């Protein structure tokens, strides 16, 4: 946007640089404003009004929607969502960490193949994959049929329409979101640090515990947030793989809008969820920053 070309070597002022960035930020900024900020403002305002009898909003101020949140029924749904989200995140970490670590040790060619394999499911529609699961795992599905055909079992093993099935489904869906940030933080660590520790007599476990693990913590945090956030608010998996017998906060919000005609309460739930997740993201960013600062200081000390 600016007509004057900065002289090389002259320290540019922040304001000028901000202006120059505008054309690049513009499209993304507009997109966010239209599709994120505006809906957020709407939802925030709906939360303070009353439900219209036939849906919609009655423009009379109320705090009832927030009072309803402490109803044991809804608190129970929130608690269950937290539980399911945490279990999925923990399992994703336990499975994803060794996977990411193993990928960093592959030859460059195999590393690419492994990363593509991790990403591959994302190239297929999410609903299609969910229905594929139903075909595979239902009581009359391929796996049960095969096991029965081979005479291994007499009665089909119920694998769908339970809460554990919801956890497994969510895990499958979001595991790549754990592996990728873990991989990126594990791959960017300096291999010499581990070698140095080994040369100084550290056992492989000690190298892992004192070198590898601390250096990968930002990736761990990012992965955990990436998995936890969508897992606890997903509503398709509880409905299709959980057979509608498990209710997560995502289902509750969806039902307020599409079944109960209660936009204000649905907005209140969505608002509280959004705020909690923003708090979580800010906390994650703060902790990551601190961890990175620690890394820089260590580097400065060891590098000097």
């Amino acid at each position, binding site marked *: 946007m600016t007509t004057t070309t900065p002289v090389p070597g002259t320290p540019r002022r922040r304001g000028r640089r901000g202006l120059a960035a505008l054309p690049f930020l513009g499209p993304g900024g507009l997109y966010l404003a239209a599709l994120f900020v505006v809906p957020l403002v709407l939802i925030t305002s709906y939360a303070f009004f009353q439900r*219209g*009898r*036939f*849906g*919609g909003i009655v423009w009379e101020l109320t705090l009832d929607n927030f009072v309803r949140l402490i109803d044991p*029924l809804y608190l*129970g*749904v929130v608690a*269950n969502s937290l539980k399911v989200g945490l279990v999925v995140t923990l399992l994703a970490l336990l499975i994803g960490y060794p996977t990411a670590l193993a990928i960093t040790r592959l030859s460059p060619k195999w590393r690419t193949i492994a990363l593509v394999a991790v990403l591959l499911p994302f190239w297929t529609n999410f609903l299609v994959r969910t229905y594929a699961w139903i075909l595979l795992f*239902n*009581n*009359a*599905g391929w796996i049960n049929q095969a096991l029965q055909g081979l005479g291994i079992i007499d009665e089909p093993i*119920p694998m*769908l*329409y339970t809460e554990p099935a919801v956890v497994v489904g969510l895990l499958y869906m979001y595991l790549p979101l754990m592996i990728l940030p873990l991989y990126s933080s594990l791959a960017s660590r300096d291999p010499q640090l581990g070698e140095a520790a080994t040369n100084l007599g550290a056992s492989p476990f000690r190298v892992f515990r004192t070198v590898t693990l601390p250096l990968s913590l930002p990736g761990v945090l990012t992965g955990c947030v990436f998995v936890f956030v969508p897992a606890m608010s997903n509503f398709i998996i509880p409905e299709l793989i959980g*057979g*509608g*017998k*498990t*209710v997560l906060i995502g*289902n*509750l919000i969806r*039902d307020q*809008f*599409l*079944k*109960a*005609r*209660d*936009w204000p309460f649905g907005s209140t739930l969505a608002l509280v969820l959004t705020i909690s997740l923003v708090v979580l993201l800010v906390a994650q960013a703060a902790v990551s920053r601190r961890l990175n600062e620690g890394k820089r200081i260590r580097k400065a000390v060891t590098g000097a």
Partner: protein
Amino acid sequence: MAVSAAAVIGLSACAPSGSSEIDADADITEQELVVSIWADYSPDDLAERFEEETGVKVTIVNHATNEEVMAKLTAGGDSGIDVAFVSGQYAQALSEGGLLQDLDKSLIPNESNLYPEASELAYDPGNAYSMPYAWGTTGLCYRTDLMEAPTSWDDLLNPAADVTGKTTMLSTERWMALPALKALGYSVNSEDPAELEEAKAQLEETKDTLLAFDDTTFYTKLVTGEAVLTEAWDGWCNYGIAEDPNIDFVVPEEGSDLWVDTMTVLKSSENKEAAMAFVNFVLEADVQSWVAENILYKVPNKAAMDLLDPAIYEQYPNMAMTPAELLEEETIVDLGEYSTEYTRLATEIAAG
């Protein structure tokens, strides 16, 4: 008259608003219509055929659920929609809210195609503001080759050992409550908290015996044999029958509901005469027989049902249910504020 109806918005159930705004001599070819209907619920060429016959341009927009179109219609101001397809109890709610134009029957001569029973619907007797488009009931859809024929809602609610874990129920609140309310001898429109509490206790027990709550894919579960007994809307059961002739539909002895999907004309419409002409056009026998033949829903249109290929009645026996039989069931009506109790019940059961 229309002004007085607007003044009593939401107060009176049947304000006698007249049709003084309707000008029977209006030139409808100067009007254009926006019609909101469920996706895949009418012939693809409906708009073209209507335009050919009347010269009125029609834009069809789709909604996925009653709630979705209700949200548009009640958001305030002119929704831009002239004709809306909604279920009977929603038409009732819209009319009580003063949003519907009373139908001018002089512009809808094809109403004579309907069965006489089609003007005896509890939410709108005489079809003053809503014209029935399709109707049906809720019952048990089951595999004749895998179980004894069920006769009672109890066969679903307290299933026999060989059926346990192989049943599904609908999850939409009014229909989730229906089997328990009917089995207990109560109304599907019950507003008695004690009755709902009893229904809830039954449903909590039933939940442990269910394969799943399922509104949309239960018939595929029947086809695979994953489920053998499901709570089902009659038309949806027919989609299962189409794939497996061993599937059959029965209305339990305790009775069930009568649901009706209707056509309504919005008071905010500035094309009311063309809208009436559209409603009239849809009531033509060949339009409604398309619905029966392709959606496999019964239509309240005698002329249309008479046109149906007898093979359809043979393959899908519930298509042959008579209007008298349907009218024996209880019509679902709007419960106003009390409907939130049903929502809560459904959440409690699903989350419990």
